[in-house]
């Protein structure tokens, strides 16, 4: 089996400002089966909690649009997860 690749997958950081925004984010998490990095369960997504999640390349445009539509501020922490995976090994042998 070939290892999973994460080309152009992104990690978003969103802090919902109120219950409505938290619900939007929970909806996105469910609909797109997002990989929550922090907190680690959908149950814990709430207003004023910083939420980090990983998004596939395919879904990232739709996620961004939904966040924009709902006037939710976000930051893209990682633009290409695969690139960061490769960059982890930044210490030379020896």
């Amino acid at each position: 089996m070939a290892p999973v690749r994460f080309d152009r997958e992104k990690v978003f950081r969103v802090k919902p400002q109120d219950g409505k925004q938290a619900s939007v984010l929970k909806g996105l998490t469910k609909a797109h089966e997002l990989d929550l990095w922090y907190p680690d369960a959908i149950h814990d997504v709430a207003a004023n909690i910083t939420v980090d999640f990983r998004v596939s390349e395919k879904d990232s445009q739709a996620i961004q649009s939904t966040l924009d539509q709902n006037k939710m501020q976000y930051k893209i922490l990682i633009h290409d997860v695969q690139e960061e995976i490769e960059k982890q090994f930044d210490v030379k042998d020896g």
Partner: protein
Amino acid sequence: IPGRHSYAKYNDWDKIVAWTEKMVERYPEMVSRIKIGSTAENNPLYVLKIGKKDDKRKAVFMDCGIHAREWVSPAFCQWFVYQATKSYGRNKIMTKLLDRMNFYVLPVLNVDGYIWSWTQDRMWRKNRSKNQNSTCIGTDLNRNFDVSWNSNPSTDNPCWQTYRGPAPESEKETKAVTAFIRSHLDSIRAYITFHSYSQMLLFPYGYTTKLAPNHKDLVKVAKIATDVISTRYETRYIYGPIASTIYPTSGSSLDWAYDLGIKHTFAFELRDKGRFGFLLPESQIKPTCKETMLAVKFIARYILKHTS
């Protein structure tokens, strides 16, 4: 033959196993390897005991790598063993600690998941056990401990990252750890578990917002430990009970160990605060371990002095 082990790099499971053998060989008086069980995929679970042969002395139990993708955690456990053995007889504090207490270090708790995260899926979190009536694999071992196990609704779906398993201690890895800790309960005075990321030092409880009976004591230890961490590279940690500092959680090893009677239990969420998340570059392993080491040594000194 696995390649060369390095404390400044991430090591795969084969390298870690070879490293445990080497540590026992190099420090036979100080290090012994105990097989505490095996995993769902029949890999061995090893604890390294650091200290003298005397089992009656106070001890600190530490585990790393309960979540597969949190690679900096096993890196710290290896670093701890290295520093402990290397600095015995040279560093006054470590010598005093090892003369008077033992450390049980489980370098990788979720071995199957760790291997999977190296070979197939870098983002894997759970173990690799099969689930009945589901094609989804794995249980979150940090939801599988027998403490308020079924209280969180977001942990009962095998396809979720936080799946708690079919029953408390259903997983061989959990069972092995709990059996070991129970059988050494008369000596273990502190339990410390290492995660990443978010730079926090957490203590009970997670399953309730009630404060632990010795809350003030835990706050005092955590405050000093996080202050100590910042002395090296000014890395800022926050501290507090799990439920109010991050979010409520059930079935965690930390709460389980506390309710079993180990009154000093801590969880480190190591670097960083999100720039890299689980993908912390190797160049940050050393500084992360160095600053964490200061806090762990402080906690151990506190345990030595303040527990009976």
